[in-house]
């Protein structure tokens, strides 16, 4: 008996230690409300989120029609540079204008044109000249029968449409070729002189050479018709104009 109880006594501490070990080891799996609560919850919540996302995706895939394969190629976005248009042409001119009964005198002015198509252009013109002496004034020096005094300035403008024809090139020397074209034009306008404005009609023809794409030289001859009653009776006058000009395109 004695020996049996001794064994019991001897083995009891071992058993207690074993029981304690087993019991304490289970503590890790228990939820202790006062320690480490947040960490364990987060660890447990994560798998459920993944699970629900997978489910939603699966449900969506089941509901939507089958998708066509979309190529994952990004189109390059190119900045499109603007094309500069150069249809306007502006420049000065110099020439002579013969005003009926007043002789031929130097004239100068400015012209602006817009090229609408390769064939047609629209041209605005502004010019000025000084009237010469009439035959009567020349034969009677010092006389001024029209009372013009210093009012000898004649200013005129016209709006014309022009048509280019016979386009081609002119060659100067061996290495230089310049574009050229003939043109005809006609329009309407007004002439102001001797204190009165007159409606005018103009028509003519010209020749244009382009030493560079932006530069032109041109000569043209136009007839400017207007009715004049400066000598008492109303008559239609033909007034020829010849000129040379330089214009720049922009």
């Amino acid at each position, binding site marked *: 008996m004695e020996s049996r109880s001794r064994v019991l006594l001897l083995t009891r501490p071992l058993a207690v230690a074993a029981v304690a070990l087993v019991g304490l080891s289970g503590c890790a799996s228990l939820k202790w409300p006062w320690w480490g609560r947040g960490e364990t919850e987060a660890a447990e919540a994560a798998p459920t989120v993944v699970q629900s996302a997978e489910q939603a995706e699966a449900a969506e895939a089941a509901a939507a029609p089958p998708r066509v394969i979309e190529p994952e190629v990004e189109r*390059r976005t*190119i900045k*499109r*540079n*603007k*094309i*500069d*248009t*150069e*249809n306007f042409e502006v420049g000065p001119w*110099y*020439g*002579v204008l013969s005003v009926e009964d007043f*002789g*031929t*005198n*130097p004239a100068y002015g400015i012209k602006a044109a*817009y*090229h*609408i*198509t*390769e*064939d*047609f252009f*629209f041209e605005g013109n502004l010019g000025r000249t000084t009237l*010469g002496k009439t035959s009567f004034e020349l034969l009677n020096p010092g006389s001024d029968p029209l009372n013009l005094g210093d009012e000898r300035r004649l200013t005129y403008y016209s*709006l014309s*449409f022009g048509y*280019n024809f*016979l*386009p*081609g*090139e002119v060659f*100067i*020397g061996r290495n*230089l070729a*310049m*574009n050229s*074209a003939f043109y005809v034009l006609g*329009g*309407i*306008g*007004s002439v102001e002189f001797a204190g*009165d*404005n*007159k*409606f005018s009609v103009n028509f003519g023809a010209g020749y244009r*050479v*382009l*030493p*560079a*794409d*932006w*530069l032109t*030289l041109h*000569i043209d001859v136009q007839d400017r018709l207007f009715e004049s009653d400066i000598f008492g009776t109303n008559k239609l006058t033909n007034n020829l104009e*010849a000129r*040379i000009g*330089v214009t720049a*395109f922009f």
Partner: protein
Amino acid sequence: MRPIVETIGRAACTLAAVFCVAGPVLAVAADPAGSARDNEKLLQLFVAAPYLDLRTGPGRGYPVTQVIARGESLDVIFRRTDYLKVRTTRGIEGWAAARDLQGALLADGSKFTLELGDRSGYQTHGWELGAFAGDFDGANLVSFYGARSVNDNLKVELSASQYLGEQRSGYMVEAGVTHVFAPEWRFSPFVTFGGGLFRVDKDAQRPNLVDRTDQSAYAGLGARFYLTRRFFLRGEYKERIVFTSRNDNEELKEWKVGLAFFF
């Protein structure tokens, strides 16, 4: 007679001098200006048609001197009317018709389209310019106008007119609004109204007129008719009231017909 002969002679000499001397000088001097464009950013195109003709000038009448093969790259230097000045990678320059380049490829592979003067342009465009001749209360009328499109139907206009008659002459500068009812129709009617300044230079009935500039307002109707390319005819009738400083206002009727173009 001497001054006339001298003047003509001088003009002829100037002319000869400019054409024979200034031409080549300017041509040579203008070259650096052309190469200065190199630095600008130019639109690049790739020929998609089997071939592309390059001409010496901006028109069908200029000779074709270069032919560009499909797939070759071009830089567009500038545009004049419906022609584009282009430069190839080899540095060759020439003029290509915009119509021939319609459908060429851009660097990102998309198609290049260019606005050309046609019916769709007649319906939708930014600007209009035109000149009219007509009658203004018995006087001849010369008129010029420019319009900016707000949309296809609505245009804001600025016009300058001169009336030249036996009895009276003067000019008008006015701004107004025009509404086109059906811009897609070839023959499309419109209404217009506006106002501006009315100037009398000569009035045979009132030779001693003191206040020569008055305000005016007008209302009118008209129609435009598409011709071809960028051109259309335009005709209109306007009733105008001039708010004179005299006891009575003046009512003046005006009609005019003209040629206009859009761009």
